[in-house]
């Protein structure tokens, strides 16, 4: 699914050359659930952005579904972000003026889905996230956990193969965090590849594989016994 070879990223900060990623190599197979850990500045978010086709590496290669991302044109990358990848952010990143279903609708608009089908699919996906009765609420009117579930619905609505989550539980209390992780585990069981960045050991324990970063390098990469959660989403 994802092959990374000697990927590096460095940028100029004043007079200093800062290396965010130093020749990282990595493979992630379909159906995996990977937690990427490390202190801030260790390069985990940079890697995430590159996998998500949001950032350009300064060296190395990155293959997503056999396609080399760096060789794609801007438009093709946008399409990839739209259809192959679902993004979940720490701060939810919902558009505040739009209702829950309108937020979920957005990726489908860019994918060219017809209006009727959009409403239908947005409803279905939100129901799957246990938000059936709240599709007309604006983000302000929802709790943090609910907002994050809207964001997950938005990430899933175009049926991507890869879900990228950057500190998805960073702004949530422990109860909501467990809820969100249960959702991820459930999606992973249904075949979705999940990659999430976190610095909480507890959250990482819900993954099947943990990769640790330090100073732009991988320091450990091990399969772990997944701590299972039962899906207990309250509407």
């Amino acid at each position, binding site marked *: 699914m994802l092959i990374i070879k000697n990927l590096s990223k460095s940028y100029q900060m004043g007079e200093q050359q800062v290396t965010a990623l130093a020749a990282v190599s990595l493979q992630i197979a379909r159906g995996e659930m990977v937690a990427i850990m490390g202190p801030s500045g260790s390069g985990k978010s940079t890697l995430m952005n590159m996998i998500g086709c949001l950032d350009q590496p300064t060296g190395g290669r990155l293959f997503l579904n056999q396609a080399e991302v760096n060789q794609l044109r801007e438009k093709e990358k946008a399409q990839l972000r739209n259809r192959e990848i679902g993004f979940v952010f720490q701060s939810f*990143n919902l558009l505040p*003026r739009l209702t829950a279903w309108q937020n979920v609708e*957005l*990726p489908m*608009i*860019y994918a*060219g889905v017809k209006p009727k089908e959009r409403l239908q699919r947005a409803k279905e996906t939100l129901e799957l996230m246990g938000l059936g009765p709240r599709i007309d609420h604006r983000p302000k009117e929802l709790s943090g956990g609910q907002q994050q579930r809207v964001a997950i619905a*938005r*990430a899933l609505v175009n049926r991507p193969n890869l879900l990228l989550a950057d500190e998805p539980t960073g702004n949530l209390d422990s109860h909501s965090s467990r809820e969100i992780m249960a959702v991820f585990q459930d999606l992973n069981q249904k075949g979705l590849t999940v990659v999430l960045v976190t610095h909480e050991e507890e959250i990482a324990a819900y993954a099947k594989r943990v990769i640790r970063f330090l100073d732009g390098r991988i320091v450990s990469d091990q399969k772990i016994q997944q701590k299972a959660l039962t899906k207990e989403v309250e509407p």
Partner: protein
Amino acid sequence: MKLSENILMAAKNLKNNKVRSLLTMLGVIIGVAAVIVMVSLGEGAKKQITDSISAMGSNLLIVNAGRGGMRGGGHATSEPLTNKIIEVITKGSSHIERIAPRLQKSKLVKYGEISLRTRIVGCTTSFPAVRNYQIAQGDFFSEADLSGRRRVAVIGAYIAEELYSGANPVGLELKIGKMRLKVIGVLAEKGQSNFGNSDDLVLIPLTTAQRRLFGTTTLSDISVQVSRAEAMEQVNRELEEALLAELQDETKFRVRNQAELLSTVEGTTQTFTFLLAGIAAVSLLVGGIGIMNIMLVSVTERIREIGIRKAIGAGQEEILGLFLLEAIMLSLAGGIIGVILGCLVAKLVASFSGLMTVLTMPSIVLSFLFSVMIGLFFGVYPAYKAAGLDPIEALRHE
């Protein structure tokens, strides 16, 4: 993604920011409305002037006294224009339909207790035909009145109204200075013109005016009606030659062509219209800059939104399109409202101030198109700025 989807999205964004959208449009609304009102005023002034020139009569040449003998300017003297000149003109060309010599001076007229100052015009029987006057009541004076130097008068509609307060003045007495005359007719109303009120005058036989009232043999001017429009230039030339032969001095007279007068006046009012439109266009431009300003603020304000949209699959074109469409829709809506407002104001100005306004299609279409172009032009830069944002930077933006 289809264009229609982007249009819907842009419309939704504008609707979500109603106050800001309205304020942004205001500049364009005022600009477009100003252009339309200003041009309509300019066109109205032009129409009023050309109408009043045409109302003077058609195919007209006017022979005036020149400034002959007077050094360094001063008033034209009517000395050289005497009754003899009428003969000269009559014989001067074969394409003359009618000649209307005129002697006019301002004098006090009186009926009963009311008196007012008006133009006393001594003229011949051809005057109404040449200068487009109709008789509303009574009769015009006859050749017999003219040759008998009779004390008769035909009064303008304004005089009839002011002196006789609407009663039928025919048969009543009118005093010009100390001379008593009999009113035999009233002219039909002609309305205000740019050369004074055409209804504020008293016509009396030329002979009466010259011999009895003013004691002179001179004329103020002579209107010459040419039989065919094509012959205007020829007659103009022939008259100038004849008059030069008679008076021996080309500075003593002037032959003015009504068509020339018309084109001079049209030229001046055209400049006037352009000037007004130019001033208004500047305000339209300022409105456009307002759009750019607001769109730039809007881009900065929505950096995070742009980042989110990019992360979930919006391409550069889609972001570019979204912001460009918002700018175009603002100026389009502003343009439409401006056109409606401009037409309304032009009508209101016409009905309340008495100024004539003429709405012309080109001014409406042009100012509307201009407003749309302005939206496009000033929308491009902010839209490019939005589309070119780095998604990661944009997502980090607080």
